[in-house]
């Protein structure tokens, strides 16, 4: 655990949530400060559940957390958390007959913005910010998937929330749209706390000050992207053939194999990436789970 450079804006302790016999979250504690924090993990790691708990969409079985000093374990506290919150869910839904403007305006009202003129100014501002100013009068059903995703981001941003929760916002976007989204998220992270769940290690490498890796409902790593990358120092090598001793290996575009794991003597080490560090972290947690199961058995 490394210290935050600033006081935490979001603190959670012992968050646990089970669905039947499955622990979606198992005693998760974390602290977030301002800036973009990436949340990495495989499918089923508990990322979406954690984000839904922090977004007050679902309560945890156990544990507590605060957002900007507000405790959502009371009705009034939850209202205050929601007043500080922008949430983009994994599969955002819309009223398809609404225009982009009307939908974001509707969300702005739900965020208690009742002054019509000020609200409309704010809606125009966020639509401009996400690059939809020109199509704000277009019905959502006629917008592309990437544009709809930006409408959802505008809905999350409207009202200037201090805590932004984004659940895989770049899924299904083409590279250009993804680049555009990265710019938006980087901009959104200036001066507010952003928690970004993603499968894309490139997103984390390019955007995030901090990164959390989850697997099996448990936090496996926290630190900076550089620290995660450093986990793979000396553990990535290239070879002309696939190395059977590697934990993972694949043929690259140049024809050589890139291997990740414990290199053999004399291997040609190469510069690790964030993804290498991430894969090794998951691999270590799999090994830990397996040995734990053996002990239990």
């Amino acid at each position, binding site marked *: 655990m490394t210290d935050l450079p600033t006081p935490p804006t979001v603190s959670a302790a012992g968050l646990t949530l089970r669905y039947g016999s499955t622990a979606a979250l198992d005693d*998760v*504690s974390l602290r977030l400060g301002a800036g973009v924090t990436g949340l990495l993990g495989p499918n089923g790691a508990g990322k979406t559940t954690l984000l839904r708990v922090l977004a007050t969409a*679902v309560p945890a*079985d156990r544990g507590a957390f605060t957002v900007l000093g507000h405790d959502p374990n009371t009705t009034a506290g939850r209202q205050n958390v929601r*007043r500080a919150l922008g949430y983009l869910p994994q599969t955002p*839904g819309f009223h398809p007959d609404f225009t982009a403007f009307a939908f974001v305006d509707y969300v702005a009202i739900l*965020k*208690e913005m009742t002054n019509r003129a000020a609200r409309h100014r704010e809606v125009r501002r966020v639509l401009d910010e996400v690059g939809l100013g020109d199509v704000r009068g277009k019905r959502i059903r006629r917008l592309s998937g990437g544009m709809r995703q930006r409408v959802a981001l505008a809905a999350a941003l409207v009202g200037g929330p201090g805590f932004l929760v984004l659940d895989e916002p770049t899924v299904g976007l083409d590279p250009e749209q993804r680049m555009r989204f990265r710019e938006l998220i980087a901009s959104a*992270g200036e*001066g507010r706390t952003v928690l970004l769940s993603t499968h894309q290690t490139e997103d984390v490498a390019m955007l995030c000050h901090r990164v959390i890796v989850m697997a099996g409902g448990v936090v496996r790593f926290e630190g900076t992207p550089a620290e995660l990358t450093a986990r793979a120092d000396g553990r990535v090598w290239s070879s002309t053939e696939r190395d059977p001793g590697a934990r993972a290996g694949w043929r690259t575009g140049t024809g050589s194999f890139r291997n990740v794991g414990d290199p053999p003597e004399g291997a040609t080490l190469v510069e690790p990436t964030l993804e290498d560090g991430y894969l090794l972290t998951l691999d270590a947690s799999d090994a830990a789970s397996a040995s734990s199961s053996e002990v239990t058995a």
Partner: protein
Amino acid sequence: MRGVTAGAAGGRDDRHGRVARGHGSGRPTPGGAPPSQPAPGREPRPRPAPSMAGIIRALVLPVARTLPWLPLAAGGTVGLLLVGVPRLVSGETPDRIALLLLRGAGLAFGLGLAFLMDDPARHTTAGVPVRRAVRAGLRVALVAPVAVGWWTAALLLVPAEVRPPVGDMTLEAAATAVLALLAGAAAVRMRDEPEPGQAAAAALLLTGLAAPLLMPDRWTLFVQPHADRWDEVHRSWAWLLAGAALVWAACLLEPVRRRRFRAVFASRH
């Protein structure tokens, strides 16, 4: 306990944590630099809490646009056809089927109402401060005048001489309507389903068709107006209406904690 920390430089904030704005620009303070701070010696002015009446006024039009008007119109039309066609065809409504037609009409409109809890944007609006109960209540309030007008029309389509007791029939129709709402709200609450309308309508239709056939005579809710048990049965309808309304209202609440028994049950596995 697994502990983590994450974060970087940045600043805040008004009372509720909204990012402070640069003066005059209307934009969040950029660059991770401290946002606009109050002048020394001055407390930041708390943002006045908006009144619920103001929020509801602002919500009326957009919420009206989100209502499932098509299923409601379809259910209403089928219901009116049910009670109106015999009269149009033969010029009269037979005494023996007037009650059945009105019950059928109530069920048809109920099937439309089962879609009232549909909200495709439910997940997108999961973290907003205006509560789900307020939005659902507003949806019902907007549809209520339509429902009252529709039911009045349905009653008037049945000739007065064969019309069953209006108050008791209205009680049955109201209970059916609330059961339809309850089916939708329960699906939302238990499965977090954004559009439960189809499943709720199917459940209501199945219940509406099976209940008269399968319920034992002593429990039946479907008796003829001249039956001795008419009043007693309508006391049961009243209880059903009240119970369904209570459970519906409970389904709209958003708990701040998961129910204890669920957590205990889960931890035993």
